[in-house]
């Protein structure tokens, strides 16, 4: 308990990081409805023309995209583009209105963008769409004001979209709280980091030579000692799992659905895996001052490669194929299945059970490895004595 108390601050830090990161991530919200919503690019307009036509264009861009303000300073724009606070900066050059009225579309705009990205192509597509529509209406005999209005109307016309064909869980997570999904995905980092950071030092003390010798000379059998260590670790694991879920429960406004119960089961399976990882690290007896480095390497590395921080859909097929050999992959996949809009029916349940089963197999393999390593070490110690 003394050791656990000294590590409480670190454990709380990890929980705080999870809450903060989850909140930050959730603030970058995507479409959560059931109809198709066109992507909105974070765009900024620098209007050097300040004419009726340029103001109409700015208005159209504001309706089609998310308009943000940006200073006309290259360094500021570079910062904003790099951190994706803005994805496209359009400079409407002086004389735009006049040129448009005369039918001249050369040298109307300048732009700052991250070249060759889909977001830049998309923005330029919508810009072409608008200019072509305005020019077409003007050439068809409309006066400029009417052409500007009609052009914007045509460029914003609704397209008939049919949604179907399955789709991935990432975009179809629809009605599931985005924040909730984010938290559950981040447990791959949180559980492993806290288990290793807090459980390992406690177990390392119990496995220290002096304490080990004192316990060996007591009337407790080795099996009973191992069992008690396992039980102690189990209590700690359950406590951590419950604590984290209570926090998510609280963040969720104290309401739980059937899906959240499945998340509970899934997170418990991964908590067992994390306990297995912590026990295995302890059985290898690392120095106490490197435990956090080992914990960070495993928790962060596994989380990144298995799609906890980056959506699985963005990772390559090769990476996902390699990630299948890690328990976090099956945990994240189960989370996505639970959160997916197609979360019903037999096939869904079968996939979910496979993911849960594989996690439990990983946990069993880790516990078996712990026993094997402990036995081998004990055998070597006996032989040396």
């Amino acid at each position: 308990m003394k050791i656990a108390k000294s590590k409480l601050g670190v454990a709380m830090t990890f929980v705080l990081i999870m809450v903060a990161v989850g909140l930050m991530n959730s603030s970058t919200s995507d479409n959560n409805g059931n109809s198709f919503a066109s992507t909105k690019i974070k765009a900024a307009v620098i209007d050097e023309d300040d004419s009726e036509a340029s103001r109409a264009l700015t208005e159209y861009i504001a309706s089609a995209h998310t308009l943000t303000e940006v200073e006309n300073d290259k360094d500021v724009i570079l910062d904003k583009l790099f951190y994706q606070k803005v994805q496209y900066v359009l400079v409407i050059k002086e004389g735009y209105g006049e040129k448009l009225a005369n039918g001249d579309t050369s040298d109307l705009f300048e732009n700052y963008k991250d070249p060759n990205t889909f977001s830049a192509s998309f923005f330029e597509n919508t810009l072409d769409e608008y200019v072509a529509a305005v020019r077409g209406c003007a050439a068809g005999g409309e006066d400029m004001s009417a052409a500007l209005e009609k052009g914007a109307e045509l460029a914003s016309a609704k397209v008939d979209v049919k949604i179907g064909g399955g789709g991935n869980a990432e975009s179809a997570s629809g009605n599931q709280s985005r924040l909730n999904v984010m938290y559950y995905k981040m447990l791959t980092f949180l559980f492993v980091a806290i288990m290793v950071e807090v459980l390992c030092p406690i177990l390392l003390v119990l496995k220290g030579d002096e304490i080990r010798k004192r316990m060996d000379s007591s009337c407790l059998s080795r099996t009973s000692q191992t069992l008690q260590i396992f039980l102690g670790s189990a209590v700690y694991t359950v406590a951590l799992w419950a604590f984290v879920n209570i926090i998510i429960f609280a963040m969720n406004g104290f309401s739980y659905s059937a899906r959240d119960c499945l998340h509970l089961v899934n997170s418990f399976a991964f908590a067992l895996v994390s306990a297995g990882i912590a026990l295995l690290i302890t059985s290898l007896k690392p120095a106490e001052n490197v435990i956090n480095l080992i914990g960070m390497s495993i928790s962060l590395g596994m989380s990144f490669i298995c799609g906890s921080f980056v959506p699985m859909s963005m990772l390559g097929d090769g990476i996902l194929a390699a990630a299948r050999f890690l328990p976090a992959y099956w945990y994240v996949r189960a989370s996505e299945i639970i959160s997916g809009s197609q979360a019903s029916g037999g096939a869904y349940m079968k996939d979910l059970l496979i993911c849960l089963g594989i996690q439990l197999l990983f946990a069993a393999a880790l516990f078996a490895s712990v026993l094997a390593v402990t036995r081998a070490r004990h055998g070597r110690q006996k032989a040396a004595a």
Partner: protein
Amino acid sequence: MFLHSLKYEIKVGLRNKELIMWLIIFPIVLGTFFKIAFGNIYSSEIASSIPVAVVENVENKTFDTVMSGIAESDDPLFDPCYTDEESAEEKLKNGDVSGIIYVDKDGLSMGVSGTDGIEQSIIESFIRQYTARETVIKAAAENDPMSIPAVVEAMNISEDMNSTIPLTDGNTDLYIQYFYNLIAMVGMFGSITGLHIAMENQANLSPSGARNNVSPVNKLTKIIASLLGSFLEQAVCIVISTSYIAFVLGVDFGSRLPLVYLSGILGGFAGVSMGFFVGSIGSMGIGAKTGLSMSFSMICCALSGLMVGDIKAMISEYAPVINKINPAAVISDSFYCLNLYRDYDRYIEKIATLLIIIMAFTLGGFLMTRRKKYASL
């Protein structure tokens, strides 16, 4: 005496093989994972042709001409595949195409699998653009058929309508900042070595601290030697991990690599001095101080964007002062400045901030450890 203390400090440091090994292995393992995870993300975001299935329920020659014009251009936006409805939906379900364009007698419509997506939005935008042109031409045909050639001509956008102003010659891959933050994290984790300097110089906290305090060596000389030894140790770890990331993983840090090393090394010094400062606070045990130091390092790294890339940008919007004083953010910003800006103004500002942080932590540690007397141990 200083050189003697320094020599033994380096020897002690080198004997702590496990810590040194992990300080080197940790960024190598994480850097490799980052490279595997992020290596393809940026290139996958670079625009290439969007695979799209076309289901023609009625023949539309104009549409076919437009689509084949797009597909045969030098830099095609779409990679169309003409097929029937059933097979198109199967392709969509398997992720072989990003969307379906249906050509019906009422016009064009679209089929997608999810409720959003940039590729799907581009398909939607193309359909809208096509429909708008069709509508304008139809209106011209109804009002004044003679104006059709002029309308078609007017709707051709000239290629030099929109020109791009280049901002930087540096690497604009957003995911490079994870590597910046990884090196910053290695630097911050140098606090573990800094922590031991303070612990081993306080008689009430460790047996070697008690021995050091009764020895005739000047305490300041001993601490400076210990700090220098740890700085050297940390510098070696940073140089190895940065070299691995730059040369083995091939992460592009820009053209000013020596200055990247300088920033990393100073980041390592900031971590060591921070550990020294934390270790000098009060009489808490090594466990509690390690916890405190690790918590602080983790918070700094998390706020710098180790887990969520754009967290630093959000902080710069709402609480910019945090980015200015967070050592991990300052280290990662110095790499960013070297990569993207042509001048050195911002880089010098970051390096100066790092030096101030190092001096503040070191002086704070000195002030807390000096002239301590122990009534009993």
